[in-house]
């Protein structure tokens, strides 16, 4: 009986939290009854005190660090002093670390295994594709059995470069993207791009801009032609904006296609972060205009906007789930470059809700069972969707969803055997990039894992810290600053 069995962690809200919770719950239920997504609401935390506490600790530790740097450690007179300080601070650090360790979830073992066994497969595939003997334009043979004859298209290459650029800077994959654009394919020599359609221009612009701050570029003779082409492309793309209607109106008088909106968002997020090539204020202005357009487009008119629409004929104004996911990722980049604009947060929340609704839908699994015959979608786009889901979920720390999506993905791999890698009569352009995307998801997933392990490691070794008060205080300060930053960002996201 509960009187004696304890609470097992089930939290009882305070009176105020209870009122709040009931109010929000009612609202959410009303919304769900109308067929709209549920409201995701966070508890109103008493953060200020915690926040102030952390700030205080930062100040204390900074001054400690200052004091520490004045102390002469060789002088025996001061030794006692330092020791005491160190002990006290160590205790504090341990407590702080412990409270931040609660991010752990157990990763299903088989998925972990799947990740590690899949990576070499993907790597082998990509390596064959881009091997120096020009395999990109030749039939592919892996393990002597798999073959796929396809020439890599410009579009695929642009996509590939861009995805590669999202790996950690200077990582192997990131460098691969760099060498593709600067050494192998010399994108900036392709002036023909200027006569291409908007989509191709956006794709080209996006992949060029991602490496625009690179030293290789800045020091090379190619800088000028690179800049020229990029600028030209930029102007072409920007002229797609219709000043009269306030929307983007590139060609044929239609609104910018959803895919192009996302591409453009990715370009803008990147340029806003790297003002070397372009005027920052122009970028911001464009970004806000674009965001406004998307905001209007995603506004629900009759309840829930179509997220999974079986009728795939509408293109420009429908945000399918993979669009939502991609846009959430783009918005995340936006907010880290442009700062927290209300519209970014609102839009992110809105898209999150749509996506969440898909996850919560009774039959959300249809999202993963589209097939070529019943819908005009190839299994590869579905794979891409799944990858976007995984990445969005990782971004938002929704581990159980990420796990789930990953396990579905794993099932698909098993079900279709190696057809993801073998399909020969394939003329889709998403093929290669899907695999890199997959790799990226795995990486992000593993990084998430490693971060958690690192936390635990810190905790375990924290008792061995006293190596010198000044050095220690430095580390302490850094850890606390990170904590402050994290809680600050969390709060921002919550708003």
């Amino acid at each position, binding site marked *: *009986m*509960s*009187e004696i*069995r304890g*609470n*097992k*962690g*089930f*939290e*009882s*809200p305070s*009176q105020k*939290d*209870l*009122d709040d*919770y*009931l109010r*929000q*719950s*009612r609202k*959410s*239920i009303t919304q*769900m009854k109308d067929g709209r997504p*549920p*409201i*995701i*609401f*966070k*508890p109103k935390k008493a953060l200020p005190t915690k926040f102030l506490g952390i700030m205080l600790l930062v100040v204390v530790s900074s001054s400690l660090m200052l004091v520490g740097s004045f102390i002469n450690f060789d002088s025996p007179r001061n030794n006692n002093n330092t020791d005491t300080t160190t002990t006290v601070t160590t205790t504090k650090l341990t407590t702080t670390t412990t409270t931040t*360790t*609660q*991010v*752990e*979830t*157990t990763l299903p073992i088989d998925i972990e295994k799947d990740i590690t066994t899949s990576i070499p497969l993907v790597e082998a595939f990509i390596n064959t594709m881009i091997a120096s003997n020009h395999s990109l334009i030749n039939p592919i043979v892996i393990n002597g059995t798999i073959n796929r004859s396809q020439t890599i298209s410009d579009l695929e290459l642009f996509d590939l470069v861009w995805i590669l650029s999202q790996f950690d800077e200077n990582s192997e994959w990131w460098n691969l993207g760099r060498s593709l654009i600067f050494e192998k394919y010399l994108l900036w020599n392709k002036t023909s791009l200027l006569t291409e359609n908007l989509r191709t221009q956006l794709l080209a612009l996006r992949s060029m801009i991602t490496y625009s701050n690179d030293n290789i570029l800045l020091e090379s003779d190619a800088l000028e032609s690179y800049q020229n082409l990029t600028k030209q492309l930029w102007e072409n793309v920007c002229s797609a904006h219709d000043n009269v209607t306030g929307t983007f109106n590139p060609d044929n008088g239609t609104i910018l296609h959803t895919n192009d909106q996302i591409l453009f968002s990715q370009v803008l997020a990147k340029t806003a972060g790297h003002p070397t090539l372009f005027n920052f204020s122009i970028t911001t202005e464009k970004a806000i205009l674009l965001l406004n357009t998307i905001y209007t487009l995603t506004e629900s008119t009759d309840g829930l906007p179509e997220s999974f629409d079986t009728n795939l004929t509408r293109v420009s104004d429908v945000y399918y789930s993979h669009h939502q996911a991609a846009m959430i990722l783009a918005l995340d980049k936006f907010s880290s470059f442009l700062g927290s604009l209300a519209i970014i947060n609102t839009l992110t929340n809105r898209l999150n809700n749509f996506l*969440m609704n898909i*996850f*919560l839908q*009774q039959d959300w*699994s249809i999202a993963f069972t589209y097939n070529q015959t019943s819908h005009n979608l190839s299994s590869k786009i579905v794979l891409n969707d799944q990858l976007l889901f995984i990445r969005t979920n990782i971004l938002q*720390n929704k*581990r*159980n*969803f990420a796990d*789930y999506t990953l396990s579905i993905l794993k099932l698909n791999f098993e079900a279709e055997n190696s057809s993801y890698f073998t399909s020969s009569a394939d003329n889709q352009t998403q093929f290669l990039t899907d695999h890199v995307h997959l790799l990226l998801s795995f990486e992000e997933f593993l990084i998430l894992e490693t971060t958690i392990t690192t936390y635990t490691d810190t905790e375990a070794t924290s008792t061995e810290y006293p190596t010198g008060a000044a050095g220690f205080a430095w580390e302490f300060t850094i850890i606390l600053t990170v904590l402050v930053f994290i809680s600050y960002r969390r709060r921002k996201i919550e708003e």
Partner: protein
Amino acid sequence: METITFHSYRGGVGKTLLSVNTAVKLALLGKKVCLVDFDLRAPSHQSLFTSSSFSITSAAKSFTGFLVGNHEPQKVINSTDRENFYCVFSDIEILQRKESKIRTKLTQHGEGRILAKLFEFVRYCNSQKFDFLIFDCMPGITYRSLDALVVSDKIMVVTRPVKSEISGLRLVISECYSKLEGAKLFSILNQVEQQEDLAHIPNSLDVNLAKENVQGITKCLEESSVSIPLLHTFRRIPFVTERIYVLDEKDHPLTIEIEDFCSKIL
């Protein structure tokens, strides 16, 4: 479909005994019933049902797993050898994973996600043409019991006539029940000493106390700011244990009382 939650401020008042027997009885009366063990922290239905003459004809997943997004609603409903009766079990496996984030989500605020899942389940049952969805809720005011209260059409507030219940009831009314909009509240007074039993109590002080407590609870309900009509008074039945009496003990006093109670619900 009607969603009914059995709730109480304190534990051990008889929610499980009454909700299980009521649910089974309703099914025996021809209603399509789904009973959910929503005492997430101390689930008991699985053992209760497996030790009864019932036979569970499926091996469904746990409701706890459903709430955190592991399973689809149709995967958690057990069918039984009674055509109309379905039950849903919880387990504490997830809760035992000490530091899991899922656990935090489940036991704490939950950001409205657990609520959304619960609502999804209610909606699913509705689509499956159930007549009654019955939650045997965990006691007290936790975020999860609030979820169950919020999605319910009717709430059965179970109390028993002991001194501490009176203050507890007053508290839960003012803090929680009075804030619920939409759901109809009813009270059930359980384990009340019958007049003839009182005659056997040796100490007259205890007799008076027993009477006073019943009066205290009744008064508390009458004074409540929201209407919580007393739907039924169950007498204290000696030697009652955790069993499904309505199933094959037609003459058992509890069976008779439950039948009476069900007629009030229908």
